[in-house]
């Protein structure tokens, strides 16, 4: 089975300053990859490189058959803090913007139906005519998740979907993702390592370079070996996280 995304020796960044250097990674069908690492370490840049928003300086990104030329789309949930909350747009229009458009201007009936079904599934159908700025953080994340799912993606990329979200929704969100993961590969960036560890299947530590951990348990030894300045995660009777001292 060829991988959905295969990144080979990728170096990329902004204004000729590399943020990621010599990164290699494979994402396969039904993977659930958690991406963790310090702020400014290049987590978002990695996502943007996969999405084609940041061009590689060196190395390349190969896509599996389904994703070549975007036969199947990549669903993307960006960081909500970049969204203009005063923009005059309704929730329903935001969700509909998730469709891939080929010149058709009016949303097709099936698109509208699909959008309504997704909103209903997330329990926010009743607010579909509200302006995006009137929503709470959790509602907004749900809307953007609906948008990302509208065009049946093969791969779902989420950038910190747990910001501005209450604990209850966070739990719901991860359960939802676990259900979606049966058919869709997911890449999830989070600053909350403790929460994602029990849901993701594999973990990538990104801090300028990338270290792949083929399980969702990261031990002290692994961290020492890879020199990853992040938290240690283990599963135990009581879920707990141990913070390691940062070296920089």
């Amino acid at each position, binding site marked *: 089975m060829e991988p959905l995304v295969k990144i080979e020796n990728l170096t990329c960044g902004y204004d000729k300053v590399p943020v990621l250097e010599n990164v290699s990674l494979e994402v396969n069908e039904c993977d659930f990859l958690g991406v963790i690492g310090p702020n400014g370490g290049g987590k978002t840049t990695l996502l943007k490189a996969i999405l084609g928003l940041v061009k590689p300086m060196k190395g390349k990104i190969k896509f599996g058959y389904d994703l070549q030329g*975007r036969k199947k789309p*990549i669903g*993307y949930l*960006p960081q909500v803090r970049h969204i*203009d909350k005063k923009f005059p747009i309704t929730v329903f229009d*935001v969700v509909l913007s998730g469709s891939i458009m080929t010149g058709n*201007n009016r949303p097709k009936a099936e698109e509208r139906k699909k959008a309504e079904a997704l909103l209903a599934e997330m329990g926010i159908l009743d607010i579909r*005519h509200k302006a995006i700025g009137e929503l709470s953080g959790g509602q907004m994340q749900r809307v953007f998740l609906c948008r990302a799912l509208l065009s049946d993606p093969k791969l779902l990329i989420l950038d910190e979907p747990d910001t501005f979200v209450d604990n209850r929704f966070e739990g719901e969100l991860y359960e939802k993702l676990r259900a979606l993961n049966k058919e869709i590969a997911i890449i999830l960036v989070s600053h909350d390592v403790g929460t994602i560890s029990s849901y993701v299947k594999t973990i990538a530590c990104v801090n300028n370079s990338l270290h792949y951990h083929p399980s969702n348990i990261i031990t002290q030894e692994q961290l020492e070996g890879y020199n990853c300045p992040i938290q240690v995660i283990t599963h135990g009777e009581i879920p707990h996280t141990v913070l390691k001292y940062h070296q920089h």
Partner: protein
Amino acid sequence: MNAIIELFNYDFFQKAFLATVFASISCGIIGSYIVARRIVFISGGITHASFGGIGLAFLLGFNPLLGAVLFAVLAAMGIQVFTKIAEIREDSSIAIWWSLGMALGIIFVFMTPGYTPNLMSYLFGNILTVTSSELWWMFMLNVVIVSFFTLFLRQILYIAFDEEYARTAGLPVNLFNYLIMTLIALTVVLNIRVVGIILILSLLTIPQASANLFTKDFKRLIVLSSVFAFLGTMIGLFISYFLDIPSGAAIIFTLVVMFGVLRGVKALL
């Protein structure tokens, strides 16, 4: 009331009425986009820079609107170049082109031999002196803008709301941005005769602010802005005619008062 109906018998007033309709539609649509994307200041820069072109046209004796288009497009590109290539902060680049255009305009007009009687009508607008050929240009601009926004409303809206997401969905974001920037420049220039360079920002923002009180839906915002722009301009036009005050200023004043009243109405609802 009879006095108002009688006005429509005059040729100059029929033209002013048509100019009002065209200005309301083009400014209602383009203004909604400008306000939603928060590019009011860029639009102001382009507008004021176009004065340089008007001055140059006076000096060399060609159509002032052509000069204005030339400078408007030049300023739109110049702002991009200054910001992206020369790495000057965007708001500073805008201010540089804004003032440079005005300065060049003043120099060119000063160098023009003889008296330049029309100058004030470009700065502050005079809707009562709009010519037939100007009306034709405005009409064609309206056809282009209305068709473009009808055919591509979804793409325009999605790109404006979340450019990055639109890119991931494969929309031609840069192409749309350039096309709309061109339409903004043309809208500004062709509506200069209605309210003038100095006041045109008002037609692009005040009706939108009024409309935004009642709707957060982009499509409705466009329609409602056009309606408010039309009402404000018509009422302003009558006030200007009957009180014998400059039309451009009367229109802006009416638009602002209208916003105040609507804001009050909304508070009561």
